[in-house]
């Protein structure tokens, strides 16, 4: 019994150590990426390629998500409000939910899955096929060449992508409110414009840059730290998606909480 407890305690200690080392490693990796940020000028073509991949190629899934966001809020909240004779308030509910919370959150999760998976698997495959070692061996900084363009492209693309999600979410809400609740579009848009203050946009748009940095660094790091052949690429891809999504969920909550508390105080 004592031996079993000792074995568990050693395993736990090893696990904790490995978590701490990974976090330290991730911190150094992130610092190196920020220090190399100037390389984005040199690798502007890679930045454009990555912007196309994480921007244009992500559009279809983001637009589908945005359509469902606006529509679902109308279905769930609009009918509740209609019961109390307050369906004219539907636009307000949709506007605040979409702009401040749901649109950045859902778009963030979609981007974590799409961009995170791509970064982790692509860089993981490069790691196990020694292409990253080859870059270093022939004098190219792999962080400047591979991580910085992904980081900069995400940073540039996430704000317009989430802005587009906001717009599509609000429009889909307007159409569904008219079709399902027989709410005049003019009344819907009036209440949207009425409720949204600059601070609401600020809450919504403070999230994409944070998500961009987090998703890029986490997924690139999991790709770079891939070991163990093709099975390792699979594992690092899963890690890239899971950690990036967890980051999005946690940061979405804390950013809203901190900024809204600050506003209220």
């Amino acid at each position: 019994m004592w031996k079993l407890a000792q074995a568990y305690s050693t395993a736990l200690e090893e696990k904790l150590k490995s978590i701490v080392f990974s976090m330290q490693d991730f911190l150094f990796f992130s610092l190196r990426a920020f220090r190399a940020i100037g390389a984005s000028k040199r690798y502007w073509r890679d930045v454009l390629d990555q912007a196309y991949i994480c921007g244009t190629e992500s559009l279809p899934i983001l637009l589908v998500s945005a359509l469902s966001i606006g529509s679902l809020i109308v279905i769930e909240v609009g009918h509740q409000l209609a019961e109390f004779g307050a369906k004219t308030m539907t636009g307000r509910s949709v506007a605040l939910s979409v702009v401040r919370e749901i649109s950045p959150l859902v778009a963030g999760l979609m981007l974590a899955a799409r961009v995170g998976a791509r970064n982790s698997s692509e860089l993981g495959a490069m790691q196990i096929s020694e292409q990253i070692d080859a870059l270093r061996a022939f004098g190219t900084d792999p962080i400047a060449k591979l991580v910085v363009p992904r980081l900069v492209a995400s940073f540039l693309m996430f704000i317009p992508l989430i802005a587009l999600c906001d717009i599509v979410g609000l429009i889909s809400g307007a159409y569904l409110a008219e079709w399902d609740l027989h709410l005049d579009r003019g009344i819907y848009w009036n209440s949207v414009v009425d409720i949204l203050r600059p601070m609401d946009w600020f809450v919504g748009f403070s999230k994409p840059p944070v998500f961009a940095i987090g998703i890029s660094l986490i997924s690139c790091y999991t790709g770079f730290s891939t070991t163990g052949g093709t099975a390792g690429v699979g594992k690092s891809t899963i890690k890239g998606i899971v950690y990036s999504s967890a980051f999005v969920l946690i940061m979405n909550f804390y950013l809203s909480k901190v900024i809204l508390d600050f506003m209220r105080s």
Partner: protein
Amino acid sequence: MIELRHVSLRYGTREILNDISLTIEDKKVKAILGPSGVGKSTIIKLMLGLIKPTSGQVLVDGVDITHFSEVELFPIRQKMGIVFQGNALFDSMTITENMSFFLRENLNLPEAEIEARVKEQMKFAGLEGFENYLPDSLSGGMRKRVAIGRALIFHPKMILFDEPTAGLDPVSSKKILDLIARLQREIGLGAVIVTHILSDVFAVADSVAVLYQGRIIFNDVPQKLYESTHSFITSFLSNQED
């Protein structure tokens, strides 16, 4: 000249290399022989500064590079070319782009000079006519020759081969070994060859070091391997001859 002085390497509690001392002279071909997973490729990565030893020193032309930063290592790495076991070619680039990539990245050469160097390597590796092919559309032997061409593009003094004939058919293996022999004969290039194949050693190496359980247990000319009484070497020799 590359020198490893009392180099040890550990990953956690796992000991990979234990007190390794080796000298690789210019214009000579040194083979590092040993079974798979014994740390042979690690020695090449130590020579390039891709990994740092836990203790000991790595010297290139008398300069201790053990604690050099990536920037400081660049001129050192230019003296050495490396051919990775899996070639490490960039699969989205053509053969020409693979060969010229690092020249464009790191040296401010005129385009005509880059084209001339690529042409020179394509000719040397017998790859003329395949300039616009992607690596995936070539055979294993041809991919290896592209990797050799890429390694030679900086005109290095020494070239490091990680298992150059692993996974190749006998004809392709012979072509690669002939190419390595030509490099030494025609341009006086030194080489380190990491391998587990005994015939490769006898085909091209001037000297051989045998790595076993993280230690060098033999370091001499290949012919003397047969005089060794070490149980691992005798069993290795008899297994390979079978």
